[in-house]
């Protein structure tokens, strides 16, 4: 049988950037965690770096539309979020892995991903195939019918990644996806990231600078809710000198850029 190609798959995108934020402000509790951030993200894998409390999680939540921005404009997949945005259509094209994602312990991996596919309003006939494909993609095929509560931390993360990509998202937001993965799994995850980045805009927040160097096409460095630097991993590495703190070029670049920004901000 010939695979049917939907008209939407062939339609050219009518937007320049998957994510476009201007002067974005987002509140987390009483604090303005994202304060005046300008951001442009297109196709590819973008690493979101920054110290703890820099506003990474809040930014990702705002991009996932679960937090309403307090100010600025946010345009996602070509649709500007106004007063009454059509979140539904956007969210069908969104993949989101929160930092602490929960699950029903008695669900099997397959049921977990299936339930998320249902929440994402995927056509019921596409669900079983898509679920199997994503479970294989994250390397959990042999545990697909085991209950979630029996999985190790790394496997849970991978199940979380599976639910995020089950709907072939155009915008994929992963908050700390590599926590709990062992070195081999992280290597496999980077390969998966590169594959995903060919067709969608992937934003990965992480503490592990070397993940960014290996898998990302672009680095976004934030501090105290503002953009510090945006460039390629090579450019970040070039920013660091021999006397900066860090074990490898990109770490030295990271600390150099952050230090410079903080010196200017003061």
């Amino acid at each position, binding site marked *: 049988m*010939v695979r049917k190609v939907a008209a939407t798959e062939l339609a050219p995108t009518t937007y320049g950037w998957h994510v476009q934020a201007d002067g974005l402000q987002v509140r*987390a509790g009483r604090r303005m965690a994202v304060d005046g951030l300008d951001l442009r993200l297109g196709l590819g894998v973008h690493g979101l770096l920054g110290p703890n409390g820099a506003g990474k999680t809040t930014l990702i*939540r705002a991009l996932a539309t679960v937090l309403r921005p307090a100010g600025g404009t946010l345009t996602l997949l070509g649709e500007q979020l106004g007063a009454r945005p059509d*979140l539904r259509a956007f*969210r069908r094209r969104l993949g989101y892995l929160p930092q602490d994602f929960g699950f029903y312990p008695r*669900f099997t991996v397959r049921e977990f991903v299936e339930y*998320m596919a249902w929440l994402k*309003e995927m056509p019921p006939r596409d669900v079983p195939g898509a679920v199997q494909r994503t479970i294989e993609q994250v390397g959990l095929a042999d545990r697909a019918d085991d209950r979630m509560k029996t999985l190790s931390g790394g496997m849970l993360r991978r199940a979380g990644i599976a639910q995020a990509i089950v709907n072939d998202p155009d915008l994929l937001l992963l908050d700390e996806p590599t926590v709990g993965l062992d070195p081999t799994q992280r290597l496999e995850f980077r390969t998966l990231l590169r594959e995903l980045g060919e067709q969608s805009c992937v934003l990965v927040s992480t503490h592990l600078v070397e993940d960014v160097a290996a898998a990302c096409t672009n680095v976004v460095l934030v501090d105290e809710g503002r953009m510090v630097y945006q460039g390629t991993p090579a450019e970040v590495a070039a920013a660091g000198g021999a006397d900066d703190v860090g074990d490898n070029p990109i770490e030295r670049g990271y600390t150099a850029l952050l230090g410079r920004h903080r010196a200017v901000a003061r």
Partner: protein
Amino acid sequence: MSRTTERHAEDDVLAAYVAGAAIPLDAEWALEAHLENCARCRARLAVTPPLAEFLATVWTRISAAATGAPAPVRSRLLRALRTWAPPSQLLWLLFGVLVTAAAVGIDVLDATGHAPSLVLLVAPVAPLLGVAAAWTRGVDPMAELAVASPRAGLQLVLRRTVAVLVVMIPALAAAGVVTDVSLAVCLVPCLAFTAGTLALGTVVGVARAAVVLGVLWVVAVIVPSLATTELSALLAPAGLPFWGLAVAAAGAVTVLRSRVFTTLPSTNLP
């Protein structure tokens, strides 16, 4: 056109293709293009001698390697039920049923007939915990995943609320039969409190709304009714139209403010 689509690969071409014999490149390309679209020729290909044996060998190897029974297919019904009430909500749902059952027990044991019916008194607040569990981050581990999904919003909240009512209404009906309380008299306040929890929940969060309404009801109605052994005027049959109005008003507020069900509350975030 129809003649070209009716054409199929010839046996000798298939045999040569399977055997790996040299056939002109364009013929090979045409054959492969045809095979992609023609199930009949693919089936013929599979039984062409060298390939048929090879496939049989592969199948034998697969069946030898496949250990154990296939994965159990969970029931379709269970899967459908989960789309109405997530597992985290079930315990809280059962609590409402337990409260109702306890009220029935006390009513039956207390045969003096002087005290007001406890079933009537607890009916409005019995579903509150189930409703609270429908949309509370602390109760539902998948809350953040659900709130970011396209299905989040009024529809999903109402689905889960309907699940609560589907359990509570038969429980109340059964309780009414046993204790001789009319279903309507206890059902309409029950609906009003359910809708009220959602309406107030759009402002302060559903869990907090359930607690506020529950405590108010206990303090303002249940305790005085038990103390004076006289049923509060609020629960008299004459009050039903007002309860009906409350249902409508709370429903309207919930619908108007339903956008809050698509976002996380910006307070209490790490």
